[in-house]
C-alpha cells in the first residue's frame, strides 16, 4: 500500500474515457518514462478497464494515483478515509453526458418513465441537477440501474424509453432513429470534472512524483492542442474508434490543454459551489457512508485555503501548486 | 417347420473371430441347451439372437422373417451378469412388465389395479423365494437373489423365445431344482423355444431336448484369435429329458485329455 514515505517507484491507473486517453499515450509513447527519468523515479501507468475497479484499487492503496471525476473522488477514496489531492484537473464535461428520450422532446416529458442509467454515477448526478431545472425530482420517475457496458445494446430495445449516459455511448445512441437529446452537461458546465487524483501523503513525501506526472501530462496536452495526428490516432485506436470519432468526443469535452486555464478553473469561486451540490447529492443517496451525519461530513479544501464541510476531516484537496509550476514552465 | 434359422453366421470383434459359419435350424418348442468352453462365444451367440448385437455376416431368421434390428418382447433374456432395474424394488421389478402392458401412457398402475398386479406376482415371488425380500432394492440382495429375480422377470413375460445365459450359476442346488421345475413347467405350457447356456452338464441333459456344443474346429496355435467357434456337436435329446448324461458324451463335449491338465498343473 501507498504508505507515506519516500520512494522511487510509483503506479497510477486510468480507465478508458475520452479525457483520459492521454494517459495511455504517455505510457506507450515514452513521454512518461522520459519525465520520470528526469526526476530519477519510476512511474508506471496502468490501464484498468473497469472504471469503478480502478478507483477501488486506488482507494485500497494499490495505486498512488487514479483518474476519476470529482464526484467519485469524494464518495469513494475521500469517503473511505483516503486523503486525496486533485493533482491535474484535466477537463470538464461540456456535453459529454446527456439525457436521451425516445418518447418526448423536452426534459419534462421524462416524468413517469423508466430511466436507464448507471445509478449513483455522474449520469445520476446530471439527471438530479437537470430535474431541478424543470421542477421535477427523482420520485417522479423510476431509475433503472443499467451497466454502462450494456447501455448501447439496452438502448436498442423497446423496453428502454429514457436514459442518461456519457460519450461515446451517448453519440452511439443518438445515432439510432427516434432518439432525442433533451439535456446535457453543457447545461451544468464545470460540474462534472475529470481529474487525476493522487494520494495526498504520497505526494507530500514525493513532490517529484507530482512534478513528473504534471510535466508529462502537459507535454502531451501540447501535442493534442497542436493537432498531432499520430498522437490523436493512437488515442483514438486505443479507445476503440477512429480519429474522426475521437475528435467528435473531444468536441464535447472542455479539455484544459493549457495549465493556466486549469489553474484558473480550479481557483474559481464556482468550484466550492459545485462540490456542495455534489456532496449534497451524495449524502441524499446515502453514499457518504452510514457514519455520515450530514453532507458536510467529509471536508473539501480549496486552493484558497477555504474548506467545505468538516475541517477536522479534510480528505479531498484541490491543489494548484503543480499545475501552476507547469504554467510557469518551472518543471 | 423350422422356427429359428441361423445360416452362415459369423461374428468378429476387430481381429478376433468369435463365431464362424454357424448353421442351425431349431424347431418351435425346442429346449436347446448350449455348452462350450469359456470364452468361445456362447454369450455372443445369444446377444445376436436378441438383436443386442449385429452379426458380421450371415443371417438369422425367426418364423421366416429376419430378426428385427432391436430387441422385442417376444424374446426374453436372462443375462450372464443378471441385470435388474436398480431403481425398483423386487416387487416393482416384477410388476413392471404388467404395467407396460396395461398402462400405455403412464406406464404405471395405481390403486386397485396396482394391488391386483401385485397379487398376480405374489405366487412368482414365493416360487423364487423372494417374498420376504420383496420391498428391497436390488443392491440389497445377494447374488443368487438377484439372479432369481432376473429369471422371474423374464419368465413373467412368457416370450416365444427365451434366452438364458448361465441362469442358475449363482444358485444353490435346492433352489436350482425349484427353478428347473418352474422353467420346465412354463416351457411346456407356453411352447417356448429356449436357448440356455450352461456349464453344468447334468443340467444341460436334464432340461434340454437338444444339446448344442460350441467349439473351434480349426485352431492356429500361433494366432489363436484367427478362427472362431461353431456348433461342433448337435445332440437330439428328444427321447425326453434325462437326468444323468452318458459319460462318454460328456467326454466328447469337453475333450481335454488328462495329460494336458497334468502338464499344466505340474
Amino acid at each position, binding site marked *: 500500500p501507498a504508505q507515506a514515505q519516500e520512494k522511487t517507484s510509483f503506479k497510477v491507473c486510468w480507465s478508458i474515457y475520452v479525457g483520459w486517453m492521454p494517459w495511455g499515450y504517455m505510457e506507450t509513447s515514452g513521454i512518461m518514462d522520459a519525465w520520470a527519468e528526469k526526476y530519477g523515479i519510476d512511474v508506471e501507468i496502468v490501464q484498468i478497464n473497469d472504471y469503478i475497479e480502478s478507483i477501488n484499487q486506488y482507494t485500497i492503496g494499490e495505486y498512488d494515483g487514479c483518474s476519476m471525476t470529482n464526484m467519485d473522488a469524494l464518495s469513494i477514496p475521500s469517503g473511505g478515509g483516503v486523503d486525496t489531492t486533485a493533482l491535474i484537473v484535466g477537463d470538464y464535461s461540456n456535453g459529454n453526458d446527456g439525457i436521451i428520450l425516445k418518447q418526448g422532446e423536452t426534459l419534462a416529458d421524462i416524468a413517469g418513465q423508466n430511466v436507464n442509467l448507471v*445509478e*449513483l454515477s455522474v449520469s445520476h448526478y446530471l439527471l438530479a441537477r437537470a430535474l431541478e431545472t424543470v421542477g421535477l425530482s427523482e420520485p417522479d420517475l423510476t431509475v433503472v440501474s443499467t*451497466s454502462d457496458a450494456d447501455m448501447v445494446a*439496452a438502448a436498442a430495445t423497446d423496453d428502454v424509453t429514457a436514459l442518461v449516459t456519457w460519450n461515446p455511448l451517448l453519440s452511439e445512441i443518438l445515432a439510432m432513429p427516434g432518439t432525442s437529446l433533451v439535456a446535457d452537461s453543457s447545461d451544468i458546465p464545470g460540474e462534472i470534472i475529470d481529474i487525476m487524483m493522487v494520494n495526498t501523503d504520497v505526494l507530500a513525501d514525493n513532490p517529484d512524483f507530482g512534478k513528473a506526472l504534471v510535466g508529462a501530462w502537459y507535454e502531451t496536452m501540447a501535442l493534442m492542442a497542436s493537432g498531432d495526428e499520430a498522437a490523436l490516432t493512437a488515442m483514438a485506436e486505443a479507445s476503440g474508434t477512429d480519429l474522426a470519432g475521437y475528435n467528435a468526443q473531444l468536441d464535447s469535452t472542455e479539455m484544459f490543454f493549457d495549465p493556466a486555464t486549469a489553474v484558473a478553473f480550479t481557483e474559481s469561486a464556482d468550484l466550492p459551489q459545485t462540490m456542495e451540490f455534489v456532496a449534497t447529492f451524495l449524502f441524499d443517496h446515502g453514499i457518504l457512508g452510514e457514519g455520515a451525519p450530514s453532507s458536510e461530513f467529509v471536508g473539501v479544501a480549496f486552493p484558497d485555503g477555504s474548506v467545505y464541510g468538516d475541517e477536522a476531516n479534510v480528505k479531498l484537496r484541490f491543489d494548484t501548486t503543480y499545475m501552476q509550476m507547469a504554467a510557469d514552465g518551472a518543471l | 417347420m423350422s422356427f429359428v434359422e441361423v445360416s452362415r453366421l459369423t461374428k468378429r470383434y476387430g481381429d478376433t473371430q468369435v463365431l464362424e459359419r454357424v448353421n442351425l435350424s431349431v424347431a418351435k418348442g425346442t429346449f436347446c441347451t448350449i455348452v462350450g468352453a469359456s470364452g468361445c462365444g456362447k454369450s455372443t451367440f445369444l446377444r445376436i439372437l436378441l438383436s443386442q448385437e449385429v452379426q458380421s455376416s450371415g443371417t438369422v431368421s425367426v418364423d421366416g422373417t429376419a430378426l428385427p434390428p432391436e430387441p*422385442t418382447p417376444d424374446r426374453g*433374456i436372462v*443375462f450372464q451378469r443378471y*441385470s435388474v432395474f436398480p431403481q425398483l424394488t423386487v416387487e416393482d421389478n416384477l410388476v413392471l412388465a404388467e404395467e407396460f402392458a396395461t398402462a400405455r401412457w403412464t*406406464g404405471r398402475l395405481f390403486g386397485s389395479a396396482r394391488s391386483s398386479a401385485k397379487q398376480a406376482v405374489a405366487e412368482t415371488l414365493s416360487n423364487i423365494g423372494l417374498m420376504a425380500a420383496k420391498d428391497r432394492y436390488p443392491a440389497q440382495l445377494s447374488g443368487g437373489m438377484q439372479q432369481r429375480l432376473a429369471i422371474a422377470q423374464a419368465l413373467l413375460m412368457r416370450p416365444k423365445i427365451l434366452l438364458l445365459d448361465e441362469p442358475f450359476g449363482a444358485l444353490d442346488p435346492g433352489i436350482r431344482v425349484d427353478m428347473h421345475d418352474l422353467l420346465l413347467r412354463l416351457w411346456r405350457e407356453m411352447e417356448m423355444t429356449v436357448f440356455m447356456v450352461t456349464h453344468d452338464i447334468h443340467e444341460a441333459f436334464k432340461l434340454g431336448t437338444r444339446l448344442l456344443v460350441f467349439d473351434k474346429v480349426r485352431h492356429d496355435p500361433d494366432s489363436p484369435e484367427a478362427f472362431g467357434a461353431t456348433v461342433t456337436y448337435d445332440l437330439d435329446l428328444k427321447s425326453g429329458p434325462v437326468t444323468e448324461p452318458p459319460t462318454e458324451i460328456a467326454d466328447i463335449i469337453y475333450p481335454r485329455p488328462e495329460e494336458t491338465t497334468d502338464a499344466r498343473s505340474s
Partner: protein
Amino acid sequence: MALFLGAIPFLGLAGVYAAASSARLSANPADKLLPSFEQMGTTFWRMATVPEVRTGDLTLWVDTFDSLQRLGLGLGVSVLLALTFGIAIGFVPHVRSALAPFLAAISLIPPITVLPILFITFGLGETAKVALIAVGTAPVMIRSVAQAVLDIPREQIVKVQTLGASVWQMVTRVVLPQVWPRLITALRLGLIPAFIFLISAEAIASTTGLGYRIFLVRRYLAMDVILPYVAWITLLAFLIDRALLLFSRRIFRWAFLEGEAL
C-alpha cells in the same frame, strides 16, 4: 466429529479475515475494504430490519425474494430444457447426431458476449434476466442429462425392450428415474453459474436484487454491504444445495445404496 472437522476451515477463514481486517483498520480507521465483523453485522442488520426511506421496503428481503424468484424461474426453464433435449439427445441416435455438435458449440458461447442479441430477443425486463440464467445454465445441464442417459447400461435398455415397453414407457419408467438423481446433481452444480448469471443479469438492468445491490454499492466500495451480501448469497446457495441433496437422498434412495455422494 465430522461437524467439528467441517467447521475448522470456516473458522480458519474467519480468523484470517479478522486479522487482515484489524490490521487494515488500525492503519486507516475509515478503510472500506475489509470492514470489521461488527460493522458488517450492523449494516446487515439495518438492511434486514430498517425500511428504506425512499420505498419503505426492507432492502434485504426484497432483494432476496426477487433474486430467488429469478433464479428459480431460470433454473426451472433449464431443467425443462435439460430433460427434453438431454433425454432426446441421449436416447435417440438421430437426434444425437443432429444436435450434439450444435449443443457442444453453442454451449461454448459465453452468453455475456452476445447480450445485445439476447436483449432484442427477450427485451430488458424480467424475461431477459430469467433467459440469461437459463441460457447460461441449460447447455451444461443438457449435456449432463444426455450423458446420464448414455451411461445407463445397455443391458437395461435391452431388458426393458424385451419387457414390451413403448419408447415413451421406456423413457418414463427406466430412463427418467435413473436420470433424476444425476439431474439433481447437475442442478446443484448449476447453482454456481446460475448465481453468477443472476448477478450479471441484475447488474445489467435492474432495480432490485442481490446482484443489483452488490453492483450499486460497489460504486462506493461499501464492502460492509458487499461482504455480508456475498455471505448471504453463499448461505442461500449452500442451503439450496443441501436441500437438493437431502431431497435426492430421500426420494431416490436406491441411488445412494452404494458409494457416497458429495
